[in-house]
């Protein structure tokens, strides 16, 4: 059995991206290239109101005046923005309902993706809550599945609606809740924020909108699966979550993408708004195609994620497990404006082969007695580079700020790099800012000890790495924790000899 397991592991490590496949659903494309016409096409395709089109056009005009960012530690080949499609949708748009009504091809994709059976059933909305092994009820997950750019199915809508929760694709929300969307869209990440956020503002295809009304604790975990499925199609998701006073929501996001030879661009924007005493927990497992062992192919993942803790005692917790993408560039951040608001960032980033990850967070303390915690665990293997880049800023008005930052790097092998680039900018003396960082490798003692108890080398490494990342993994909702642990091991296969 052991031998079989190993053989499978090596096959997976040496050969392919496990989930690298593409399905051949007919696509409807926007014309290749990027122009004002592309923007108008997307907006028309989605039947958007004039204000939305105007907003997009303004962003596009801005984008044309901007320069691509300075890549710091990343080595990014030049991107030809005219050589890509900016919009694609599955031709037959199924109505929400049972599994039978969804394109069977799409269902097969979900199966290959490994969406748990339970969730697939939930997607159909046909089963009671299954119980966990120990008899406790399993938490429920509502899945708004994004297939390429268009949302094709939403579940549990009724129950969510009964609670007053709005959970829609953003295109639907623009039409159904224009006032809410207009009020908050671009308020956390302004159109001119950065090159990729501006691009996203112009051409975003779809995404998710969530509104949790005052005092409501969202009755289930919300989850969206993103996929890129069309050759040369940039993926420009837009997510907006508004948590009204005293509300709570846990949102899960997981990504995989099919194998491609050409590099694919992804530039998502996620905006979170949190009012008084509200909390959003946002968890991500990112496992997009990382490219092969020579660095060919793989997703370029340039994401802008930011939360505005506007209300008093509001809280945002970002948790991310980043194992995929050829290049990852993302800094889920918190603007802590409300007095007593709390920002958290828990991150595990794994890079192997030729992957490059530059990720971290910004904690902007504006309100009094705001607190933030940053725990970053970077794991580098192969010939990869893994960078933590973070900013903790304390404004003069922010009395009593507390921040604790822990950045740990683990190197597997001597051909990779681990970098820590923290910025600390403090303008109020009552702040207490602490930053600690360590760099280590897996010691031979640890490996031998684990192996002498019966684990093979791969299993020993996976175990030790999971221990290293534990503080972050335990922040994940149960549904993701197991998957994430598996991912860490899989991502590092072939990295120890």
């Amino acid at each position, binding site marked *: 059995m052991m031998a079989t397991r190993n053989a499978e592991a090596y096959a997976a490590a040496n050969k392919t991206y496990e989930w690298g496949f593409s399905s051949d659903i007919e696509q409807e494309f926007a014309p290749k290239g990027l122009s004002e016409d592309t923007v108008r096409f997307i907006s028309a395709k989605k039947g958007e109101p004039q204000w939305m089109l105007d907003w997009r056009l303004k962003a596009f005009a801005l984008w044309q005046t901007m320069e691509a960012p300075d890549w710091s530690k990343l080595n990014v080949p030049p991107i030809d923005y005219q050589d890509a499609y900016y919009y694609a949708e599955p031709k037959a748009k199924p109505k929400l309902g049972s599994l039978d009504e969804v394109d069977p091809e799409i269902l097969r994709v979900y199966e290959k993706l490994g969406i748990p059976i339970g969730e697939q059933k939930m997607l159909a909305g046909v089963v009671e809550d299954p119980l966990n092994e120990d008899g406790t009820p399993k938490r429920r997950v509502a899945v708004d599945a994004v297939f390429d750019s268009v949302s094709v199915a939403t579940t549990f809508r009724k129950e969510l609606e009964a609670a007053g929760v709005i959970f829609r694709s953003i295109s639907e929300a623009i039409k159904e809740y224009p006032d809410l969307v207009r009020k908050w869209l671009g308020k956390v990440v302004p159109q001119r924020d950065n090159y990729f956020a501006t691009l996203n503002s112009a051409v975003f295809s779809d995404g998710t909108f969530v509104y949790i009304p005052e005092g409501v604790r969202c009755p289930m975990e919300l989850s969206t699966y993103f996929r890129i499925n069309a050759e040369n199609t940039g993926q420009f998701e837009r997510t907006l979550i508004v948590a009204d006073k005293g509300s709570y929501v846990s949102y899960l996001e997981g990504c995989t993408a099919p194998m491609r030879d050409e590099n694919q661009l992804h530039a998502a924007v996620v905006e979170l708004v949190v009012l008084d005493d509200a909390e959003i927990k946002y968890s991500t497992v990112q496992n997009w195609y990382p490219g092969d062992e020579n660095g060919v192919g793989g997703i370029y993942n340039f994401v802008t994620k930011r939360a505005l803790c506007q209300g008093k005692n509001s809280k945002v917790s970002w948790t991310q497990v980043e194992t995929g993408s050829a290049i990852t560039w993302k800094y889920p951040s918190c603007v802590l404006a409300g007095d007593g608001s709390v920002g958290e960032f828990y991150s595990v980033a794994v890079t192997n082969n030729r992957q490059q990850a530059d990720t971290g967070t910004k904690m902007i303390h504006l309100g009094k007695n705001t607190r933030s915690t940053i725990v970053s665990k970077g794991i580098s293997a192969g010939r990869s580079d893994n960078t933590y880049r973070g900013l903790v800023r304390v404004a003069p008005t922010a009395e009593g700020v507390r921040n604790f930052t822990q950045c740990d*790097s683990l190197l597997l092998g001597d051909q990779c790099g*681990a970098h*820590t680039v923290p*910025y*600390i900018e*403090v*303008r109020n*003396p009552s702040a207490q800012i602490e930053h600690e*960082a360590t*760099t280590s490798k897996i010691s031979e003692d640890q490996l031998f000890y684990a192996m002498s108890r019966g684990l093979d080398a791969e299993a020993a490494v996976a175990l030790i790495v999971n221990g290293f990342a534990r503080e972050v993994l335990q922040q994940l909702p149960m549904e993701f924790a197991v998957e994430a642990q598996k991912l860490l091991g899989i991502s590092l296969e072939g990295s120890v000899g």
Partner: protein
Amino acid sequence: MAAVMELPSTREESWRWGDPAAIAAAAGLPRGEAPAGAWFLELEGARAVFVDGVLDEGRSDLRHVAIAPLEGGTHVLGARTTGHGWSLRVEAHASAELIQIVHIATGGENHVPAEIVLADGAQASVVETYVGTGWSNRSTRMTLGAGAKLARAVRLLQTAGFVSVRDEADVGAEASLIVTMLGAGDAGTRIDGAITVSGDDAFAEYGGALLARRDQRQECALSVRHAALNGQSKQIWRAVAADTSTASLAARVEVARDAQKTDGVQSLRGLLLKRTATVNLKPELEIFADDVKCAHGATVGELDQRALFYMQSRGIPHAKAQALLTRAFVGDAFAQIADETVRDAFVADADAWLEAAL
């Protein structure tokens, strides 16, 4: 001042917290009288006085120090120093006498290059003091042969203007470099350091304290690069900011692919004395070798309020209590100064600053 126009922009990463405008302003200060004072420490050895970048022979006793044409290197500020500067070359296994250098500026800009070249097993110590006003710009290249030892202590005490110091060092096998900086004047400060640990089993310590007040901006941008086996480095820095000042520390440890068994220690700590002040820290690691120990810590905060109250309750006035605690905070950065007289001078400089600032 055409040259000033070519100063770097704060858009550049290493000048993120920099203040190029202050350099231009300092260079524009009119030349005036040299300040009076006894700037040399009571220590035997060679002495050199530069007034606005020119050696004052009457007040100097060069002994083994030479004046020679030197290159300023490629650094944006360091490059401007190309010209005549001071040179210390010590033969293998020789110990040079202590060298004291006082840089007096009266206004305008002045640029001086320097080199310290220690052959295998050679030893030297250097104390430098900057006073006056204007823009004083220096570059110092330090080359340490195998087993060489250099201790260098630099006091930045100009009362106005700007002092920019560019240091480059190459530390050979089993050599030891210890540089201690103190910014305790009223001038803007920019310390640029690029230290390379190029020989196996070598040691480099580059640290100090920046004490900023009024509208001053003091900053240090330092990188220590480990390019050899078994190297050890320390960057112990303390930043204190009062009034509307800004003190910034950007310190980096780089570990090259082959520099296994490196032990790089970094401790950056900031103390804010007023809510209008700013401390910026950037403790950076860039690591390409897997068998290394690079622990670093950074903290920013204010003085321990309980300790302050405790001291006050025992009768110590608030300002005095602040001064005592701040002194203790800063003191860590001077611990590596081996010469007691030099260390006492650093502590006295810091005390004088605290007396005035608090």
